[in-house]
């Protein structure tokens, strides 16, 4: 499994060293080439640097070797900011490589390799599925304190997005959720379609993390901070914590993980969508 996660450019050396690391994985087929992110291996490099390759894309160098994706492609990032952030992740690793802490690297790998071989339409449809069961649209009927909390915290975001995109979403306490009008879905379908493949990869990632299209658009449109969105996504859990107490190894652990993943996804969207890479002074008359 480790073999697939990272391939380096000097084939002989990497095969040798990898064989030492994972002899019992040799027989595993292509199906398992995408390893679980929990696998760890030793840090085998000292220096991490970036360089600009052909076509203006940025590459990551570990010592003198170029980083590759799990699929065996050359790892490239579309701009300097993302490349530096990825390089920083590699530089942050101490003795072992902890891939589950390298969210931006993972997102780039996903966008480059597209392991599930989906196109934009499929990704948009998968994302819009979350709108039908959006976290902020599902309300409880009891206990009253939680009903009140959901109303106070979720309604403002819901109103914001309805005004921002001029759509109708609504909320419901029925098990079937609210009835989202077709026009609303069309609006979001069109909007999501305006993102490129990379941004959409990040966008879908954030949506699946927060289980909410509304909160995701809140972050991407910079209406909410990551912390706010994560709090809103975990509202019921926070309510239960306030009532029954906080357990560090479950609640805090989950929260930090969710924050890290959401922040990585949001940053990934912003860094890969065209609008944010052009930063120029706006002149006012």
């Amino acid at each position, binding site marked *: 499994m480790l073999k697939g996660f990272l391939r380096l450019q000097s084939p002989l050396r990497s095969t040798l060293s990898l064989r030492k690391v994972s002899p019992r994985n040799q027989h595993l087929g292509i199906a398992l080439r995408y390893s679980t992110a929990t696998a760890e291996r030793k840090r085998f490099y000292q220096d991490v640097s970036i360089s600009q390759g052909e076509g203006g894309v940025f590459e990551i160098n570990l010592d003198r070797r170029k980083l590759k994706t799990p699929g065996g492609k050359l790892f490239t990032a579309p701009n300097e*900011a993302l490349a530096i952030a990825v390089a920083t992740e590699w530089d942050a690793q101490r003795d072992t490589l902890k891939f589950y802490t390298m969210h931006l690297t993972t997102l780039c790998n996903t966008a480059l390799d597209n392991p599930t071989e989906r196109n934009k339409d499929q990704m948009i449809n998968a994302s819009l599925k979350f709108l039908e069961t959006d976290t902020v649209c599902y309300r409880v009927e009891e206990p009253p304190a939680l009903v009140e909390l959901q109303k106070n915290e979720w309604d403002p975001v819901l109103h914001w997005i309805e005004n921002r995109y001029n759509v109708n979403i609504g909320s419901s306490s029925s098990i079937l959720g609210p009835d989202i009008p077709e026009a609303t879905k069309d609006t979001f379908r069109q909007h999501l379609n305006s993102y490129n493949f990379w941004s959409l990869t990040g966008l879908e990632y954030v949506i699946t993390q927060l289980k909410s299209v509304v909160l995701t658009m809140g972050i991407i449109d910079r209406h909410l901070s990551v912390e706010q969105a994560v709090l809103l996504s975990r509202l019921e859990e926070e309510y239960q914590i306030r009532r029954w107490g906080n357990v560090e*190894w479950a609640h805090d652990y989950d929260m930090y993980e969710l924050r890290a993943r959401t922040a990585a996804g949001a940053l990934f969207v912003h860094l890969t969508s065209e609008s944010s890479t052009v930063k120029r002074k*706006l002149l006012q008359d």
Partner: protein
Amino acid sequence: MAALSSPLRVCRGIMKELRAIQGPSYKKSLAYSYVMDQFRKNKVTGERYCRAQQEAHHDAHTYLCLLASTRNHLILHNLYHGKGERSPEEVAGLVGLRLPTQPGGKGWEK
């Protein structure tokens, strides 16, 4: 617009995280020079309302959140989940119990 802490605080926060990642030589890192450069570029503009500046501020805040959350998550992971699964004896010990022992070894009932 989301309520964010001031750009200076965010900048300091990112520097603190970079130092935690890279140690004392963090000022030589790529990330340090890039982040400082971005903050300087977006520092003061003549406009009362500058969209690019706010975007950069939000992104910086997001990056700080990424670095800090990853660090905290890793600390908790190493503390509670890093050692793999506990043995049945350890699990029982956590709640103050001991596993039953079989006095005569396996199959002594016969």
